């Protein structure tokens, strides 16, 4: 192995897991112990990433308290170092990590709240992408509408929970008096997106619209999603729902489902 690579692997080990054994011999003592010098870099790594996680997951940090959050962050940072130099992309695995931590078992809503915070973070930072406009599908024959398969804006996320995570989030992001939230008071299905001011927000979905949007997001053709939503609720207003997605810039592109075309030809 080239010498530089060997040195960098040793330093990385010291920073990631605190094992200074391989790095120490490459570092001059100069009066201060090399382990102490390496500790400065390890501290910087773990403090800056902990601050980054706390900025992305402020509600989790408030719900579990500072001591517990710091402990969770320390373990997560060791298990899951960043893959990207952009810190706003760090921490996508934190919700799943929280679900795996045994001491959090009495708080089963925490991973779902974390999923919501991550979705808001993604919505906040997702790349700018032009929205689908009416003229983009003006050339289609009405018979082709049913085969349309849509692409969603990268800022758009779907989050579902059996807990009222919308109210848990709000209660922990405002200074209003926190009223008691009944964890059994209903599940939520939420569409997270950027609004026209580019603030990340969400709207709650009724079961039929949720069914419609989940199918569309799974790249199912429009007719299939529409039918499924109608089976969920015969009063589902597909035109209104689709117009809402287009007006809010949630859809960015479409193609015609090739399997349906094949079906039509055969």
């Amino acid at each position, binding site marked *: 192995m080239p*010498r530089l690579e060997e040195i*960098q692997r040793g330093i*990385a080990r010291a920073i*990631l897991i605190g094992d200074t054994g391989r790095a120490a011999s490459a570092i001059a003592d100069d009066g201060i112990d090399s382990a102490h010098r390496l500790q400065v*870099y390890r501290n910087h*790594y773990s403090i800056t990433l902990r601050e980054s996680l706390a900025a992305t997951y402020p509600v989790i940090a408030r719900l579990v308290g500072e001591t517990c959050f710091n402990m969770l962050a320390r373990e997560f940072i060791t298990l899951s*170092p960043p893959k990207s130099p952009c810190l706003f992309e760090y921490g996508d695995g934190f919700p799943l990590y929280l679900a795996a931590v045994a001491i959090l078992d009495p708080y089963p809503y925490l991973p779902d709240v974390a999923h919501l915070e991550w979705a808001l973070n993604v919505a906040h930072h997702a790349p700018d992408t032009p929205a689908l406009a009416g003229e983009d599908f003006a050339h289609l024959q009405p018979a082709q509408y049913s085969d349309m398969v849509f692409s969603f804006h990268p800022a758009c996320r779907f989050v579902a929970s059996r807990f009222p995570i919308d109210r848990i989030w709000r209660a922990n992001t405002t200074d209003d008096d926190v009223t008691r939230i009944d964890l059994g008071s209903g599940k939520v299905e939420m569409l997270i997106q950027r609004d026209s001011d*580019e603030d990340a927000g969400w709207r709650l979905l009724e079961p039929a619209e949720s069914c419609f949007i989940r199918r569309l997001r799974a790249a199912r053709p429009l007719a299939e999603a529409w039918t499924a939503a109608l089976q969920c609720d015969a009063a589902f207003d597909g035109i209104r729902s689709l117009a809402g997605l287009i007006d809010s810039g949630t859809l960015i592109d479409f193609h015609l489902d090739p399997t349906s075309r094949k079906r039509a030809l055969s």
Partner: protein
Amino acid sequence: MSSLRDRLSPQTRCGIGLRAAHAAEVIATHPDIAWVEVHAENYMGGGQAIRQLETVRNDYAISLHGVGLSLGGTGRLNTAHMGRLRDLVNRIEPALVSEHLAWSGNAGTYLNGLLPLPYTEEALAVVAGNLAVLQDCLGRRVLIENPSAYMRYVESSIPEAEFLAELVDRTGCGLLCDVNNIFVSCTNLGGNPLDWLDALPADAVGEIHLAGHCANECDDGVLLIDDHGSPVAAPVWALYDRATARFSNAPALVEWDSNLPALEVLLAEAQVADRRRAARIDEMCHAAA
């Protein structure tokens, strides 16, 4: 005093590092700032952040300061990340682009820090190679900043300033001279900051950085930490005076990251830098007359 400062050309007045917490205030109040520098990695997404930067760009010259390319890292350069930097450069059209003499990770893991390199021929070849690719990709000269260091490698055989001068020779890059980093590294590792400064090729220096540091005491001594969390220290101002005399065309910039104060505190610090530079120029003119 202000008339002295006003004699500085706009190109050599001191700018500030613009952090997200101050962006809205800068846009709303439009303060007198010579120019601003931002960390490129904070603007590689979409939405509000990049929109704010585009608004700021309408009124201020911008410098993009990269912190994540790991030019000294072994293994392949993260070309996807370099592509994102190029897209941002094309979008913002910054006055300056800079990166660091450092490495930040390997094998796909990012260590979120600017780690020092051993100053060897091997490391020089790695950094020069990556820097050549970067400058080719961006189609422009990049300034390389000297790091602050808390450790020295046994195998380092090339003095840091000489290493940087060699990079300039091999790649045509420019240099970003961080006078706080010089002071921090020289204090932590031994060395004379003035000699260090004098060893840099003056023509290559295109920017000067100023920032505060703190002291971290341990059992066997004190390490200075480059935390950008306090006013510029007196010995760093003295180094700055020397730097403005040597690098007369390089504008300065005040960085502040931890314990970020009110915007007006940063602006006041930049004014101090301007007054010191103007006074220095005055002195030199009198000496020459």
